[in-house]
């Protein structure tokens, strides 16, 4: 099938199964991008994720920056362009969906080449739960590029797919390896379909895989050599060229010169020759290679095979020059030992193999060590790892197919359970390590994506740098989005050469996740918008929405903020709600308050230790306000304590601290006071709570609870009654957080709507958190977490009356005697009345002068709460001010925008200081 695509504004056609890179080569496009610093034209170096050069921006169907042309699967309608450096993000919302999934297995195999497939099949044969992930569209790994054992691959994959406990994930890159064998992978599900992707389908899925055992079969990446003009389009890694010819059916050139340090380039040369590429010469940097066709010349089987085909093998020869800026046109070769022996060869392709680097990124992330192996001329996994991980295949330095297969079977744990195909392979000759060719300088690149050359590395070592990490940061080698997959070892090799040290002693830089770039959209997955964090709602949420409430986030809760009527702004709505509560009757959904059932023979003792005030003397039927401090004497939380029975209390916490206080109780019970016989149970959502507030509340309650004696004497302040309200079993508490006559009616969460509707039917005005804040602030009731910040004691808040002087001990007691707690200039909670009627911003600083003094400025304190008051007919604020209670009646100045405005310091209780309204 023909696929149409556009690259750099020109239309082309590719084939099904192409990558963008293979399709470009198919169309004779060899210049794909340009160097970020040098601007030099750049082509395609590799055929995989390690590509440093062919960086592209996808424009259609949806913009995606900085992808490698070698990994973009071609689809009809693709529009892309080459990039010099960074791309651009989409300027429109991404219509695609992303998600994440958890998976567990006995054996996770990463990589579906010969070793990985054999490992997966072997593990599956043991009845293990197996996950096999591979980043390619189809399994096979290096076998695809070599065209080997494809029948075995197909048969093995079919067997794996049919096995019930095996999951095969293609197009899936394992990019992060974390502790306890937690491996994170990204599956690309619909990108390759382009515009044909089903609407609403998940585009990318993050796999969070927990494996009992991991087999890494991540293979190896070929590396280049640093020589002058090694970045020219047409210079390609030999294995990549083989892959283009064998797997994609594309010839990357017509006439090639090969430069190699090892056997693998011979296999590539032979396959390319078979495919129709003329191989002009193979310059083998190993002078030991014999091209003799004599069968007794050791270690030169590959060279003999080439010679038989008429391919010239030049042992001990190197590349001395590359001609052609936009495409290689000729390659000059020179004998290493005899500089007068030279060749100038016309060629459009220079195939390079500087050796193979085991892909050790995940193994290194797992905590495994990579050590330089001179026999391999590469860093490879060495020894054990703190995690249950093993390595197999090319990652372990095994480069024969038969070796990879048997190592995979061994690693999979099913040795003896599966049969392997027999592979005949020539005896290998050892590779050598070559990092630079003579004359390598400013045009000899080690990192093509960052445009870092041998000259740059020379400059770094010339300044005195001796560590690979320092050189990396100084030159940026290995810091591009390919993370130095082709550059890392080469850089270390060149630096070691410059410093005159062993590369093994120098080492490599550190591998960190992600192995390949991962989109933020994929990482966000489904956790975006309203699903970013759970939203908690009360049983009355639907009623609040229906009344037009605006909502305030309090922790994860949505609480009604205020309920504007038609045409009302926030200011008008809140003033109206405040008036309803102070002058008539109003109600608020208080269900979000934390509720903890505390019971047991020692419950009173326990609460005495937690609260600053005495709880154990509370009579059943009564309620007490209480304050909790941390051991440092600072206020932790406040709320009410209801004594339900001799051994049973119900404690309320602030909305945001419900879970924290339960944990706090459990911590003390479990770790410090295990002898106390106390059990704590959260009942926050067992009960829905409606606060019924205002001088009219008694009549409304009386109408709904005919069995309840609602008289002052019959139902005094700070007591509770179990009764029936609106026909519902209810617990009514005479508590007030507004200073008005008020009741908190608790019913089952299931009954909340019925209660609310009954109250609404009686014309009770609903109010939200903003009005609640105003009402309580008028009374000087602090909100823990708003008027406090972890440095405030009960005494600072004017709650000294709630600190017991009788109890022998409680949390915080000792700290009240600390010098710092005894200071007379501690910040204290006071009221503020802006003289000019301004609404002070919360956080405004307070000064004792009308003009800003010269810095440093020592503020006296800051505003913690600030509102318009309907009852006071003015604005007011609460503030924490140094020695504030001694400043009553004095004038201070508050910062407001870029000016200072005068405020009068007042007591914190601004409304009904006598408390006359509490009993109606």
């Amino acid at each position: 099938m023909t696929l149409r695509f556009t690259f750099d504004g020109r239309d082309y056609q590719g084939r099904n199964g192409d990558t963008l890179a293979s399709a470009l080569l198919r169309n004779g496009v060899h210049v794909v991008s340009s160097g970020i610093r040098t601007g030099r034209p750049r082509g395609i170096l590799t055929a995989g994720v390690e590509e440093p050069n062919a960086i592209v921006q996808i424009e259609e169907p949806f913009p995606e920056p900085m992808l490698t042309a070698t990994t973009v699967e071609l689809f009809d309608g693709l529009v892309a362009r080459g990039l010099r450096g960074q791309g651009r993000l989409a300027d429109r919302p991404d219509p695609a969906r992303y998600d994440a999934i958890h998976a567990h297995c006995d054996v996770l195999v990463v990589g579906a080449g010969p070793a990985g497939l054999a490992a997966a099949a072997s593990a599956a044969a043991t009845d293990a739960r197996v996950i096999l992930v591979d980043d390619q569209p189809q399994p096979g790994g290096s076998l695809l590029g070599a065209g080997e054992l494809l029948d075995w691959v197909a048969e093995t994959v079919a067997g794996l797919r049919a096995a019930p406990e095996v999951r095969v994930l293609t197009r899936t890159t394992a990019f992060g390896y974390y502790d306890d064998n937690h491996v994170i992978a990204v599956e690309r599900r619909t990108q390759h379909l382009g515009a044909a992707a089903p609407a609403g389908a998940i585009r990318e899925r993050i796999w969070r895989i927990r494996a009992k055992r991991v087999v890494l079969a991540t293979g190896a990446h070929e590396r280049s050599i640093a020589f002058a003009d090694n970045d020219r389009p047409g210079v390609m890694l030999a294995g990549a060229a083989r892959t283009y010819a064998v797997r994609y059916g594309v010839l990357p050139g017509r006439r090639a010169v090969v430069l190699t340090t090892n056997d693998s380039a011979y296999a590539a040369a032979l396959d390319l020759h078979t495919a129709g590429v003329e191989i002009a010469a193979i310059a083998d940097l190993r002078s030991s290679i014999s091209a003799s066709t004599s069968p007794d010349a050791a270690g030169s089987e590959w060279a003999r095979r080439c010679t038989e085909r008429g391919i010239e093998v030049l042992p001990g020869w190197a590349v001395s020059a590359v001609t052609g800026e936009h495409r290689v046109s000729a390659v000059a070769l020179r004998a290493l030992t005899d500089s007068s022996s030279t060749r100038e060869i016309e060629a459009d392709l220079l195939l390079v193999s500087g050796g193979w680097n085991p892909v050790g990124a995940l193994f290194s992330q797992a905590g495994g060590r990579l050590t330089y192996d001179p026999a391999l001329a590469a860093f490879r996994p060495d020894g054990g790892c703190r995690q249950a991980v093993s390595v197999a295949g090319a990652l372990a330095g095994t480069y024969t197919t038969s070796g990879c297969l048997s190592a995979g079977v061994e690693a999979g744990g099913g040795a003896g359970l599966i049969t392997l195909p027999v592979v005949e392979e020539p005896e290998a000759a050892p590779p050598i390590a070559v990092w630079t060719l003579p004359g390598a300088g400013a045009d000899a690149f080690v990192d093509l994506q960052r445009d870092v050359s041998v000259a740059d590395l020379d400059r770094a070592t010339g300044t005195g740098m001796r560590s690979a990490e320092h050189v990396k940061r100084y030159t940026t080698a290995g810091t591009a989005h390919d993370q130095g997959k082709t550059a890392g070892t080469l850089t270390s090799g060149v630096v070691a050469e410059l410093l005159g040290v062993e590369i093994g002693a120098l080492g490599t830089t550190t591998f960190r996740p992600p192995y390949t770039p991962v989109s933020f959209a994929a990482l966000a997955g489904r956790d975006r918008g309203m699903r970013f964090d759970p939203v908690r709602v009360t049983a009355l949420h639907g009623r609040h929405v229906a009344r037009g409430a605006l909502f305030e986030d309090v922790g994860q809760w949505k609480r009604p903020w205020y309920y504007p009527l038609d045409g009302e702004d926030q200011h008008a709505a809140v003033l109206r709600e405040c008036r309803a509560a102070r002058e008539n009757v109003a109600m608020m959904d208080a269900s979000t308050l934390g509720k903890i059932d505390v019971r047991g023979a020692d419950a009173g003792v326990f609460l005495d230790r937690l609260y600053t005030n005495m709880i154990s003397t509370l009579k059943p039927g009564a309620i007490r306000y209480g304050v909790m401090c941390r051991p440092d004497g600072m206020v932790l939380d406040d709320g009410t304590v209801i004594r339900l029975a001799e051994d049973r209390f119900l404690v309320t916490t602030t909305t945001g601290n419900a879970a924290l206080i339960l944990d706090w109780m459990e911590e003390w019970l479990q770790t410090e006071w295990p002898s106390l016989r106390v059990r704590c149970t959260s009942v926050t959502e067992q009960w829905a709570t409606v606060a019924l507030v205002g001088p009219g509340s008694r009549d409304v309650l009386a109408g709904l609870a005919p069995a309840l004696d609602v008289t002052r004497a019959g139902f005094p302040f700070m007591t509770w009654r179990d009764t029936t309200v609106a026909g519902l079993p209810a617990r009514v508490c005479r508590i007030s957080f507004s200073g008005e006559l008020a009741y908190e009616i608790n019913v089952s969460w299931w009954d909340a709507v019925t209660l609310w509707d009954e109250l609404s039917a009686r014309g009770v005005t609903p109010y939200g958190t903003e009005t609640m804040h105003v009402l309580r602030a008028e009374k000087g009731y602090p909100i823990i977490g708003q008027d406090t910040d972890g440095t405030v004691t009960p005494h600072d808040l004017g709650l000294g009356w709630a600190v017991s002087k009788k109890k022998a001990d409680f949390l915080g007691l000792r700290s009240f005697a600390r010098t710092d707690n005894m200071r007379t200039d501690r910040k204290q909670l006071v009221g503020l009345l802006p003289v000019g009627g301004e609404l002070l911003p919360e956080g405004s600083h307070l000064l004792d002068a009308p003009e800003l003094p010269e810095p440093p400025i020592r503020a006296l304190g800051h505003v913690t709460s600030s509102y318009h008051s309907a009852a006071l007919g003015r604005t007011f604020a609460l503030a924490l001010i140094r020695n504030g209670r001694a400043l009553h009646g004095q004038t201070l100045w508050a910062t407001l925008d870029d000016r200072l405005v005068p405020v009068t310091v007042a007591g914190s209780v601004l409304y009904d200081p006598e408390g006359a309204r509490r009993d109606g």
Partner: protein
Amino acid sequence: MAERSPLADVDLSDTGDRVTLAEVPFLTQLDVRTSPSSSFPEPGTFRTDELDGEATFIWLGPDEWLVVGPPGAQKRLTERLESGRLESVSDTSVVDVSAQRTTLELRGPGALELLALGCSLDLHPRVFGPGRCAQTTLAHTPVILLQRKHCVTTGEPVFWVLVRASFASHLASWLLDASGDLTAGH
């Protein structure tokens, strides 16, 4: 005047053809905190008790169990617990938390995959078979998860997800959204 369950207003039917989701409302739920004894299920398990017949005992922690029964059985079950197996235990509490959580029943060939989209536990039948329970998070929401049984006709697992009332609509919305992304097998 009718009681309203937390998901009374949520249409749970639009889950595609691979899972079904239903609220099991108004179950009796009693939180029991007491010293561990052999009369309660082991960590990570639950069982429907023969003595109490109608009650399922769910392990929540080293000294905490949730006893679940049919709607309206709060008083009966509390009395049976307190007069029966908890009688001799002094530091014990039984608290009615029936309205605290609602229960979602999840079943179908896609149930495991749907849970895997939001829960990090291994719920494979080899690990989390019938009778297993856990306190965990699903879609970042704290839940109690039970593998009830295998469906008699299909052999597929049936899960109960007990979720706090305040989180119920968030979780239901997440489950409905995610159920549209289930693959047709792997």
